[in-house]
């Protein structure tokens, strides 16, 4: 049957309109840096990012280039490379809407979208100031309480318009192997559309491979794929290659200063790698 379209990176990125509610993978999972670079060059506008469940370099770069109107995340940080400088600067300047969450809420919201239900209950969280700042989170009395009141939090479904990530491989039918990075499957199930860049496209049918089938996103959920060798540079890709530590440290440095970031972005515009 007809599988996902196989495009080049530019055409894959072109399928992401300005204003998209875009789910992106965390730095340790599969980040499609190749597509992010194209969005940076285009100066995409008004993106509403959903970090699954935290964001790092991708989000900071896009925020710095003015591509992001809003981000929902449990945290935005460059991890061991320090604070996310552009994120922090944009927040301090009031140029970015931050919808602070906590990791399990984002997972549960995506699971609600995956199941087609409007909300999901979650234990914990009550008494956190997060709740007061999220009018879309509601507290009800647990209808299953044995005795007395038992308040419980409800969180709404999170249905990204597009899920974007990078994976080690797709097969010719467009099935995408993700290994243990199951949040990528959740993203694909929850989002209305899924765009994936991959290191390579192989002839093996992953769904017919007894070992790999269980760790494969079926093509059914994938709208289009593009091949991009080292497409997760510089953050690295699980099971394939590690982070480019020098490039990440350079970026972290640039992110903390307007002029340094502007210079970094000029290099991107000039066609340098994201890591440049």
């Amino acid at each position, binding site marked *: 049957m007809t599988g996902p379209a196989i495009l080049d990176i530019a055409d894959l990125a072109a399928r992401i309109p300005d204003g998209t509610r875009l789910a992106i993978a965390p730095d340790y999972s599969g980040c499609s840096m190749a597509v992010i670079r194209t969005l940076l060059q285009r100066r995409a506008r008004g993106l509403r990012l959903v970090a699954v469940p935290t964001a790092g370099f991708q989000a900071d770069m896009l925020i710095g280039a003015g591509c992001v109107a809003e981000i929902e995340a449990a945290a935005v940080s460059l991890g061991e490379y320090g604070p996310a400088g552009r994120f922090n600067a944009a927040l*301090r300047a009031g140029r970015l809407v931050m919808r602070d969450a906590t990791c399990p809420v984002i997972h549960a919201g995506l699971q609600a979208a995956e199941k087609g239900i409007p909300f999901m209950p979650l234990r914990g969280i009550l008494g956190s100031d997060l709740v007061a700042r999220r009018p879309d989170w509601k507290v009800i009395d647990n209808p299953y309480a044995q005795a007395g009141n038992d308040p419980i939090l409800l969180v709404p479904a999170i249905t990204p318009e597009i899920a974007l990530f990078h994976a080690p491989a797709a097969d010719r039918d467009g099935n995408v192997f993700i290994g243990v990075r199951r949040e990528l499957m959740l993203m694909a199930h929850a989002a209305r559309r899924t765009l994936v860049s991959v290191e390579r496209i192989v002839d093996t049918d992953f769904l017919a491979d007894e070992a790999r089938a269980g760790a494969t996103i079926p093509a059914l959920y994938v709208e289009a794929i593009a091949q991009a060798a080292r497409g997760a540079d510089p953050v690295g890709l699980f099971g394939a290659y590690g982070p480019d530590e020098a490039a990440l440290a350079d970026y972290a440095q640039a992110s903390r200063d307007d002029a340094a970031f502007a210079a970094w972005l000029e290099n991107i515009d000039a066609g340098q790698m994201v890591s440049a």
Partner: protein
Amino acid sequence: MTEGAIQIREILIAVIADMLDGCGHVAVGASSPVPGAAALLAQARSGGAMRVSVLGSTRHNFFTDGGRELFDCAAQGRIDAFFLSGGQIDGAGNINLVGIGDPDRPKVRFPGSFGSAYLAFMVPKVILFREEHTPRTLVEKVDFVSAPGTSDPGIYRPGGPRALVTGRAVFAFSPDEARFTLRSVHPGETPETVAAQTGFAYNTPDTVPQTPLPDNDTLALMRGPVARAVAETYPGFAAQLWGIAA
């Protein structure tokens, strides 16, 4: 390796490891090398009875159901201990990972709450860890509650903070009192120097011992097999503390 002077971080690792003895499953967040090393030390002493999950590690990560599994696993009661930190920690055990000032236009922005608002409820033994022990980090009241230290009796809460370990001292936390008690001070500190650097009120018993130093067996274990295991997950940390590479 066992001959060198005992370093403060080795004391922290040892005292946290003591708190973990008897746990069946300890989980450690990414970028938490001292708690990670403590968990690996406790595991090495457990005779194989303790499981340690280090997020972000390939070797010490047993999860296969995606990012949600840590949280689901905690909610199932399968994680006995976890570590949380905070840009600010206050005397009621609240932690702030969001920032200072109006969150919409913060004066200081921290990364965000991560899973704290959840794990602080679900994990029976939450150990708060923050090396910087100053009135800036240990405050009377946090500007933003990422995770509350305690909850009303009607709230489902099988877990919560039980201790706070800093670069100066060890505190126990009583959820009933919503208050810390000073348990020990590290070498070079006294109850008075600790009090001067702490922005919140807490209980001080009549006698406050010095935090115990790791004994020779513990040091040998820490500087040998544990250091090598730590180096696999936190290479920079292991190189700096013990001068060994992964």
